Protein backbone atom coordinates (compact mmCIF):
# COMPACT_ATOMS: atom_id res chain seq x y z
CA UNK A 1 0.00 0.00 0.00
CA UNK A 2 1.84 3.08 -1.23
CA UNK A 3 -0.23 5.42 0.93
CA UNK A 4 1.38 4.21 4.15
CA UNK A 5 4.96 5.28 4.92
CA UNK A 6 7.30 2.26 4.94
CA UNK A 7 8.80 3.03 8.36
CA UNK A 8 5.35 2.64 9.92
CA UNK A 9 4.91 -0.80 8.35
CA UNK A 10 8.20 -1.86 9.95
CA UNK A 11 6.44 -1.54 13.31
CA UNK A 12 2.78 -2.40 12.73
CA UNK A 13 0.77 -4.37 10.23
CA UNK A 14 -1.25 -2.76 7.45
CA UNK A 15 -4.55 -3.64 9.14
CA UNK A 16 -3.38 -2.18 12.46
CA UNK A 17 -2.38 1.03 10.71
CA UNK A 18 -5.79 1.48 9.09
CA UNK A 19 -7.53 0.62 12.36
CA UNK A 20 -5.51 3.25 14.27
CA UNK A 21 -6.14 5.83 11.56
CA UNK A 22 -9.85 5.10 11.59
CA UNK A 23 -10.06 5.32 15.39
CA UNK A 24 -8.24 8.67 15.28
CA UNK A 25 -10.67 9.86 12.59
CA UNK A 26 -13.63 8.77 14.72
CA UNK A 27 -12.30 10.35 17.92
CA UNK A 28 -11.63 13.65 16.14
CA UNK A 29 -15.16 13.48 14.76
CA UNK A 30 -16.51 13.08 18.31
CA UNK A 31 -14.60 16.17 19.42
CA UNK A 32 -15.83 18.14 16.40
CA UNK A 33 -19.40 17.02 16.95
CA UNK A 34 -19.27 18.04 20.60
CA UNK A 35 -17.80 21.45 19.86
CA UNK A 36 -20.28 22.23 17.09
CA UNK A 37 -23.23 20.95 19.13
CA UNK A 38 -22.30 23.20 22.06
CA UNK A 39 -21.86 26.15 19.72
CA UNK A 40 -25.13 25.52 17.87
CA UNK A 41 -27.04 25.30 21.14
CA UNK A 42 -25.37 28.46 22.39
CA UNK A 43 -26.65 30.45 19.39
CA UNK A 44 -30.06 28.79 19.11
CA UNK A 45 -30.85 29.08 22.81
CA UNK A 46 -28.50 31.74 24.21
CA UNK A 47 -28.32 31.88 27.98
CA UNK A 48 -29.17 35.23 29.49
CA UNK A 49 -26.52 36.41 31.89
CA UNK A 50 -29.07 37.05 34.61
CA UNK A 51 -30.68 33.63 34.30
CA UNK A 52 -28.71 32.20 37.19
CA UNK A 53 -27.67 28.57 37.62
CA UNK A 54 -29.54 26.04 35.56
CA UNK A 55 -29.64 22.35 34.77
CA UNK A 56 -27.70 20.22 32.30
CA UNK A 57 -29.25 21.77 29.19
CA UNK A 58 -28.58 25.30 30.41
CA UNK A 59 -24.97 24.47 31.14
CA UNK A 60 -24.68 22.70 27.75
CA UNK A 61 -25.73 25.86 25.90
CA UNK A 62 -23.95 28.31 28.17
CA UNK A 63 -20.55 27.88 26.52
CA UNK A 64 -18.52 30.77 25.14
CA UNK A 65 -19.02 29.89 21.48
CA UNK A 66 -16.29 32.17 20.17
CA UNK A 67 -13.66 30.13 21.96
CA UNK A 68 -14.57 27.06 19.90
CA UNK A 69 -14.19 28.60 16.43
CA UNK A 70 -10.52 27.94 15.76
CA UNK A 71 -10.74 24.48 17.31
CA UNK A 72 -13.72 23.60 15.09
CA UNK A 73 -11.81 24.72 11.97
CA UNK A 74 -8.70 22.74 12.92
CA UNK A 75 -10.75 19.66 13.87
CA UNK A 76 -12.76 19.80 10.63
CA UNK A 77 -9.57 20.02 8.54
CA UNK A 78 -7.73 17.21 10.36
CA UNK A 79 -10.81 14.97 10.44
CA UNK A 80 -11.31 15.67 6.74
CA UNK A 81 -7.68 14.84 5.98
CA UNK A 82 -7.81 11.55 7.91
CA UNK A 83 -11.15 10.68 6.30
CA UNK A 84 -9.76 11.42 2.84
CA UNK A 85 -6.82 9.16 3.59
CA UNK A 86 -9.04 6.31 4.80
CA UNK A 87 -11.27 6.82 1.77
CA UNK A 88 -8.69 5.12 -0.49
CA UNK A 89 -9.00 1.98 1.60
CA UNK A 90 -12.78 2.34 1.79
CA UNK A 91 -13.11 2.61 -1.98
CA UNK A 92 -11.19 -0.60 -2.55
CA UNK A 93 -12.23 -2.83 0.32
CA UNK A 94 -15.52 -1.52 1.71
CA UNK A 95 -17.53 0.08 -1.06
CA UNK A 96 -17.18 -2.80 -3.52
CA UNK A 97 -18.57 -5.42 -1.08
CA UNK A 98 -21.33 -2.98 -0.04
CA UNK A 99 -22.36 -2.70 -3.69
CA UNK A 100 -22.13 -6.46 -4.17
CA UNK A 101 -24.49 -6.90 -1.22
CA UNK A 102 -26.88 -4.36 -2.75
CA UNK A 103 -26.78 -1.86 0.15
CA UNK A 104 -27.40 1.01 -2.26
CA UNK A 105 -28.92 3.47 0.17
CA UNK A 106 -26.04 2.96 2.60
CA UNK A 107 -23.65 3.76 -0.21
CA UNK A 108 -25.79 6.74 -1.20
CA UNK A 109 -25.74 8.36 2.23
CA UNK A 110 -21.99 7.83 2.37
CA UNK A 111 -21.62 9.65 -0.96
CA UNK A 112 -23.68 12.50 0.50
CA UNK A 113 -21.43 12.51 3.57
CA UNK A 114 -18.34 13.06 1.44
CA UNK A 115 -20.09 15.88 -0.45
CA UNK A 116 -21.05 17.64 2.80
CA UNK A 117 -17.54 17.25 4.20
CA UNK A 118 -16.10 19.03 1.15
CA UNK A 119 -18.70 21.80 1.13
CA UNK A 120 -18.17 22.30 4.86
CA UNK A 121 -14.48 22.79 4.19
CA UNK A 122 -15.35 25.72 1.95
CA UNK A 123 -17.41 27.36 4.69
CA UNK A 124 -14.69 27.37 7.34
CA UNK A 125 -13.01 30.72 6.53
CA UNK A 126 -16.22 32.74 6.81
CA UNK A 127 -17.34 30.68 9.82
CA UNK A 128 -14.07 31.57 11.56
CA UNK A 129 -14.37 35.23 10.59
CA UNK A 130 -17.96 35.51 11.86
CA UNK A 131 -17.06 33.97 15.20
CA UNK A 132 -13.95 36.10 15.61
CA UNK A 133 -16.30 39.08 15.30
CA UNK A 134 -18.88 37.66 17.68
CA UNK A 135 -19.38 41.05 19.34
CA UNK A 136 -20.56 42.60 16.09
CA UNK A 137 -24.38 42.37 15.97
CA UNK A 138 -24.50 42.65 12.17
CA UNK A 139 -23.07 39.11 12.00
CA UNK A 140 -25.51 37.57 14.50
CA UNK A 141 -27.84 35.97 12.00
CA UNK A 142 -25.30 34.53 9.51
CA UNK A 143 -23.11 33.30 12.36
CA UNK A 144 -26.06 31.61 14.02
CA UNK A 145 -27.39 29.84 10.95
CA UNK A 146 -23.99 28.96 9.51
CA UNK A 147 -23.08 27.33 12.82
CA UNK A 148 -26.36 25.42 12.87
CA UNK A 149 -25.77 24.34 9.25
CA UNK A 150 -22.28 23.06 10.01
CA UNK A 151 -23.57 21.29 13.13
CA UNK A 152 -26.30 19.62 11.05
CA UNK A 153 -23.74 18.53 8.45
CA UNK A 154 -21.52 17.18 11.20
CA UNK A 155 -24.33 15.18 12.81
CA UNK A 156 -25.28 13.68 9.46
CA UNK A 157 -21.68 12.74 8.68
CA UNK A 158 -21.12 11.28 12.12
CA UNK A 159 -24.21 9.08 12.00
CA UNK A 160 -23.50 8.00 8.43
CA UNK A 161 -19.97 7.00 9.40
CA UNK A 162 -21.44 4.86 12.18
CA UNK A 163 -23.93 3.23 9.82
CA UNK A 164 -21.27 2.38 7.25
CA UNK A 165 -19.00 1.03 9.95
CA UNK A 166 -21.88 -1.14 11.17
CA UNK A 167 -22.43 -2.47 7.66
CA UNK A 168 -18.79 -3.26 7.04
CA UNK A 169 -16.33 -2.07 9.64
CA UNK A 170 -13.76 -3.71 11.86
CA UNK A 171 -13.36 -7.44 11.43
CA UNK A 172 -15.39 -7.64 8.24
Amino acid sequence: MGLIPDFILDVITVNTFWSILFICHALLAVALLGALSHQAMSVLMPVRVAAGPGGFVTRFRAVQGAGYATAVCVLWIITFFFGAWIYTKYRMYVRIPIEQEGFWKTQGVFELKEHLASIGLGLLPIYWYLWKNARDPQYDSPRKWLTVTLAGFCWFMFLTGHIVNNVRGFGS
Partner: protein
Amino acid sequence: MSTTTQTPAAASKPSASSLAQSATFRTFATVFALAAPIIYVICEMRNWPLFTYHPGTNRLDLGWSAAVRDQGPAMHWYGWTATMLIGSAILGGIATMLPENVTKRIPLSLVWILPLAAVPVLIYALRFFWRWE
Protein backbone atom coordinates in the same frame (compact mmCIF):
# COMPACT_ATOMS: atom_id res chain seq x y z
CA MET B 1 -33.69 38.23 20.00
CA SER B 2 -30.07 39.10 19.46
CA THR B 3 -27.70 36.20 19.60
CA THR B 4 -24.63 38.34 19.95
CA THR B 5 -22.42 36.15 22.06
CA GLN B 6 -21.81 37.45 25.56
CA THR B 7 -18.15 36.65 25.81
CA PRO B 8 -15.30 38.10 27.77
CA ALA B 9 -13.49 40.67 25.65
CA ALA B 10 -10.38 38.54 25.33
CA ALA B 11 -12.32 35.59 23.90
CA SER B 12 -13.70 37.27 20.83
CA LYS B 13 -12.16 40.70 20.39
CA PRO B 14 -9.91 40.55 17.34
CA SER B 15 -6.43 41.87 17.69
CA ALA B 16 -5.45 44.78 15.47
CA SER B 17 -3.14 42.66 13.34
CA SER B 18 -5.39 39.65 12.93
CA LEU B 19 -7.27 38.48 9.88
CA ALA B 20 -10.44 38.86 11.88
CA GLN B 21 -10.33 42.64 11.45
CA SER B 22 -9.45 42.59 7.78
CA ALA B 23 -12.14 43.72 5.33
CA THR B 24 -10.15 42.04 2.57
CA PHE B 25 -10.27 38.70 4.37
CA ARG B 26 -13.98 39.17 5.00
CA THR B 27 -14.56 39.62 1.27
CA PHE B 28 -12.34 36.67 0.40
CA ALA B 29 -14.01 34.37 2.94
CA THR B 30 -17.52 35.42 1.93
CA VAL B 31 -16.96 34.83 -1.78
CA PHE B 32 -15.06 31.62 -1.05
CA ALA B 33 -18.05 30.33 0.95
CA LEU B 34 -20.52 31.34 -1.76
CA ALA B 35 -18.49 29.84 -4.59
CA ALA B 36 -17.62 26.55 -2.86
CA PRO B 37 -21.06 24.86 -2.90
CA ILE B 38 -21.83 26.15 -6.39
CA ILE B 39 -18.55 24.96 -7.88
CA TYR B 40 -18.74 21.65 -6.03
CA VAL B 41 -22.27 20.89 -7.23
CA ILE B 42 -21.36 21.80 -10.81
CA CYS B 43 -18.22 19.64 -10.67
CA GLU B 44 -20.16 16.72 -9.22
CA MET B 45 -23.06 16.91 -11.65
CA ARG B 46 -20.92 17.60 -14.74
CA ASN B 47 -18.17 15.26 -13.48
CA TRP B 48 -15.35 17.76 -13.74
CA PRO B 49 -12.63 16.66 -11.32
CA LEU B 50 -9.28 18.41 -11.45
CA PHE B 51 -7.72 14.96 -11.38
CA THR B 52 -8.68 11.31 -11.03
CA TYR B 53 -7.03 8.99 -8.53
CA HIS B 54 -6.76 5.26 -9.13
CA PRO B 55 -6.25 3.69 -5.66
CA GLY B 56 -5.49 0.24 -7.05
CA THR B 57 -2.39 1.44 -8.86
CA ASN B 58 -1.72 4.77 -7.04
CA ARG B 59 -1.98 6.59 -10.35
CA LEU B 60 -3.16 10.17 -10.88
CA ASP B 61 -4.65 11.37 -14.15
CA LEU B 62 -5.31 15.01 -14.90
CA GLY B 63 -9.02 15.67 -15.35
CA TRP B 64 -11.61 12.92 -15.56
CA SER B 65 -10.64 9.41 -16.46
CA ALA B 66 -12.48 6.12 -16.27
CA ALA B 67 -11.54 3.09 -14.22
CA VAL B 68 -9.08 0.81 -15.99
CA ARG B 69 -10.18 -2.77 -16.39
CA ASP B 70 -8.64 -5.09 -13.75
CA GLN B 71 -6.92 -2.15 -12.02
CA GLY B 72 -9.63 -1.20 -9.53
CA PRO B 73 -11.94 1.79 -9.34
CA ALA B 74 -11.33 5.43 -10.22
CA MET B 75 -11.91 8.12 -7.57
CA HIS B 76 -13.09 11.58 -8.58
CA TRP B 77 -14.03 13.07 -5.20
CA TYR B 78 -10.51 14.33 -4.51
CA GLY B 79 -10.54 16.05 -7.88
CA TRP B 80 -13.95 17.67 -7.30
CA THR B 81 -12.77 18.95 -3.93
CA ALA B 82 -9.54 20.31 -5.40
CA THR B 83 -11.47 22.05 -8.17
CA MET B 84 -13.79 23.57 -5.58
CA LEU B 85 -10.96 24.83 -3.35
CA ILE B 86 -8.88 26.28 -6.18
CA GLY B 87 -11.86 27.78 -8.01
CA SER B 88 -13.26 29.33 -4.83
CA ALA B 89 -9.85 30.73 -3.90
CA ILE B 90 -9.47 32.33 -7.34
CA LEU B 91 -12.94 33.89 -7.17
CA GLY B 92 -12.32 35.02 -3.59
CA GLY B 93 -9.05 36.58 -4.64
CA ILE B 94 -10.67 38.39 -7.56
CA ALA B 95 -13.41 39.68 -5.25
CA THR B 96 -10.85 41.30 -2.97
CA MET B 97 -9.93 43.60 -5.86
CA LEU B 98 -13.46 45.00 -6.01
CA PRO B 99 -14.32 48.22 -4.16
CA GLU B 100 -15.48 47.68 -0.59
CA ASN B 101 -18.81 49.42 -1.21
CA VAL B 102 -19.55 46.65 -3.75
CA THR B 103 -18.40 43.69 -1.66
CA LYS B 104 -20.27 44.95 1.42
CA ARG B 105 -23.50 44.51 -0.50
CA ILE B 106 -23.07 40.74 -0.77
CA PRO B 107 -25.76 39.26 1.49
CA LEU B 108 -24.04 37.29 4.23
CA SER B 109 -27.12 35.10 4.67
CA LEU B 110 -26.11 33.36 1.43
CA VAL B 111 -23.17 31.72 3.22
CA TRP B 112 -25.59 29.30 4.88
CA ILE B 113 -28.47 29.37 2.39
CA LEU B 114 -26.37 28.19 -0.57
CA PRO B 115 -24.87 25.14 1.19
CA LEU B 116 -28.35 24.11 2.37
CA ALA B 117 -29.74 24.63 -1.14
CA ALA B 118 -26.98 22.37 -2.48
CA VAL B 119 -28.16 19.45 -0.35
CA PRO B 120 -31.38 18.56 -2.27
CA VAL B 121 -29.49 19.00 -5.55
CA LEU B 122 -26.83 16.56 -4.39
CA ILE B 123 -29.47 14.14 -3.14
CA TYR B 124 -31.02 14.27 -6.59
CA ALA B 125 -27.61 13.74 -8.19
CA LEU B 126 -27.28 10.57 -6.11
CA ARG B 127 -30.66 9.20 -7.28
CA PHE B 128 -28.94 6.06 -8.58
CA PHE B 129 -28.53 4.92 -4.96
CA TRP B 130 -32.08 5.54 -3.73
CA ARG B 131 -33.57 2.21 -4.82
CA TRP B 132 -34.95 -0.93 -3.24
CA GLU B 133 -33.17 -4.06 -4.42
